[in-house]
């Protein structure tokens, strides 16, 4: 191989790998990302069933109902609107009524209840999920420090 051919081989190999990576990334960004919505967005935007989303807000006071088994029902609110949630599993340590929470999952067809498969609460007493804080600010009910 001449020097030129060697260089060509290395460069074309590089382009092939990078091209493949770009395609993978574009494909994954189309299908594998999850949008965040507040309860108000849900009402306004009409999210279809089976679309995976993240939903964030406050756990409504006195809304948590524990079933007999591992099923839990609660309501997520941004004070303007609210969405009922069901979840099966263990809730995070800092999950409490009146606190910020993010749930991930989807609506089932023909059912207004959101079926969550993961529930994220904060990791620290002083900390509110950023998305939740912002959507609460948008609703004008933010009570934390203004930062």
């Amino acid at each position: 191989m001449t020097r030129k051919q060697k260089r060509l081989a290395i460069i074309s190999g590089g382009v092939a790998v990078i091209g493949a990576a770009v395609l993978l990334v574009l494909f994954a960004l189309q299908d594998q990302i999850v949008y965040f919505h507040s309860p108000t967005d849900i009402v306004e935007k009409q999210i279809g069933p089976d679309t995976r989303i993240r939903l964030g807000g406050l756990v409504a006071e006195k809304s948590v109902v524990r079933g007999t088994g591992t099923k839990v029902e609660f309501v997520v609110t941004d004070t303007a609107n609210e969405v009922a949630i069901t979840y099966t599993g263990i809730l995070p340590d800092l999950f409490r009524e009146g606190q910020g929470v993010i749930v991930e999952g989807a609506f089932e067809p023909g059912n207004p209840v959101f079926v969550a498969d993961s529930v994220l609460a904060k990791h620290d007493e002083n900390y509110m999920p950023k998305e939740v804080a912002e959507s609460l600010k948008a609703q004008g009910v933010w009570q934390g420090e203004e930062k």
Partner: protein
Amino acid sequence: MIVELGHYALIMALATALLQSVLPIIGARTRDAGLMGVAPAAAIASFVLILFAFVALTVSYVTSDFSVKNVWENSHSMMPMIYKFSGVWGNHEGSMMLWLLILVFFSALVAFFGGNLPATLKSNVLAVQAWITSAFLTFVLLTSNPFQRLSPAPLEGRDLNPILQDIGLAIHPPMLYLGYVGFSICFSFAVAALIDGRIDAAWARWVRPWTLAAWTALTAGIAMGSYWAYYELGWGGWWFWDPVENASFMPWLAGTALLHSALVMEKREALKIWTILLAIMTFSLSLLGTFLVRSGVLTSVHAFATDPTRGIFILCILVAFIGGAFTLFALRAQTLSPGGLFAPISREGALVLNNLFLTTATATVLVGTLYPLVLEAITGAKISVGPPFFNLTFGPLMIPLLLAVPFGPLLAWKRGDLWAVTQRLYMAAGAALLVSLAVIYFATGAPVMAGLGIGLGVWLIAGSLTDIAMRSGVGKVALPIMWRRFKGLPRSAFGGALAHMGLGVSVIGIVAVTAFATENVVTMKPGETTVGGPFTLQFEGLKPNTGPNYTELQGRFIILRDGQPVSHLTAAKRVFTARQMPTTEAGIYTNGANQLYVALGDELPGGGVVVRVWWKPWVTFIWFGAIFMSLGGIVSLFDRRLRIGAPAKSRAPAVAVGQET
């Protein structure tokens, strides 16, 4: 008093660092030995000053001096001593101090051990280190002063975040920072070489041990963090593709690439420009990680309390260093002469392939980490990019890389024979194939992919063993000669093989736990049983217990196998008194490489409790593999070539720009 002295020492350190930023560069320009001599003295002085400040802060933690705001916010008089100590870096201000301490520690090492470096290179390297030190010292002094006092002093502290009250905090951040910040040396060497306008194989020989040391620490730090998150958070996962995990993983990927490209540069003088670029990129990614964690743009376990001024400050540092380095690179790179030639099929070619895949993979992780931030800034839409994205992008890029790993060390430099290497690897390939088939055949319900994945891990392990065997001449020479050859192999050969083997071990762990882990969430009353893998778990009941600064409810379980008790296990829900914050303490029973993992959920009326039980086969392989990789790094570090370090002075001096062929 010591607190004020600590603050004063930080200010003095800034003054020293500023001198060290300027004078040695001028000295190197004008060949003024006096000015160049400032660099090592100042580097050691900075280290002593920052060490003093760090000790001052540690003393106020250990003595629970709540008149210091930082101590009040993050400590408690009832906390066990180990957490009082490690709590120093369990918060933003204190961890910045640790960051700085490690930074100047590395500068001091260069000053101390850099006796055989050319004087101008050493001066420039230390000056660039001092730029970084000055920038971060200014940041600490202006926005994150850990020595701020409170008056009147509160009687009791607010306690350390309970999640951090673990031995993990004593190990994970120091190791991680040794890695992260250790790459600053590679960055400084790269920038110094660009300032000097010359670079040669000797440069690579100086840079490689630093890269190795940083990489070894970072590998161990990430693995330790992964295991800590696994047992502490009670989620049962070992990697979440959380943006902050990615922030540490990207420098690791780039650093791994750097480790390999520096090898080419050292041995063959090729890939010079690329190596310089990688050195800059690796530390830039470390800085990016620092920015992501501390600016509050992310929500994560690791994110410190948000403060926009800090974010903007670090962003400025980030832009100045990355922008500056890349500008310098653009101006100077073409003056660096390209190095040796090689055929695409050769050891160099294999290492180029390694670099290509690793940097591309780094880029995909970078896209996945930053895309949500960029999208939100542009369109306002909030998204999360989670494991599915990374599995789909990072995963496919790793498979060809892992397949290629065993070929690399067996290929000859300059021009290799792929067919000959393939023939040598037939045993490894056979072993991998056999294991794949066995897994698919014997493991009921095993996906074919799992079999192939485990085969891939075996391929890596067998490939590394083949490398060592071939080098010792197994099957070609008599046993005594083989043994002599084996003993005579350079340590770096063993280090490399060990690291590649560790990679294989991790791959097996990852594949096995992904494919074969089982999980069940049940409610249990005392006496009831549930199944976890081959074991049966019998719930004994809940029992309250009191620790030094918490109260807990312990769930006790007996582990049965074939009806016979083999062990027992305790999982707990803790409430830390000061913060009234609950945490989950998982109960883990290790059986061979497998683990039975139990987390407690909510207590139910009527004496029951929600229990989450995972059976995680071979899960410990994930971290053992990482330990092997680190050990490989350490073994390589003790290679004679690196221990003796720089080339002997009698060798021809480095060739200046443009004079090389």
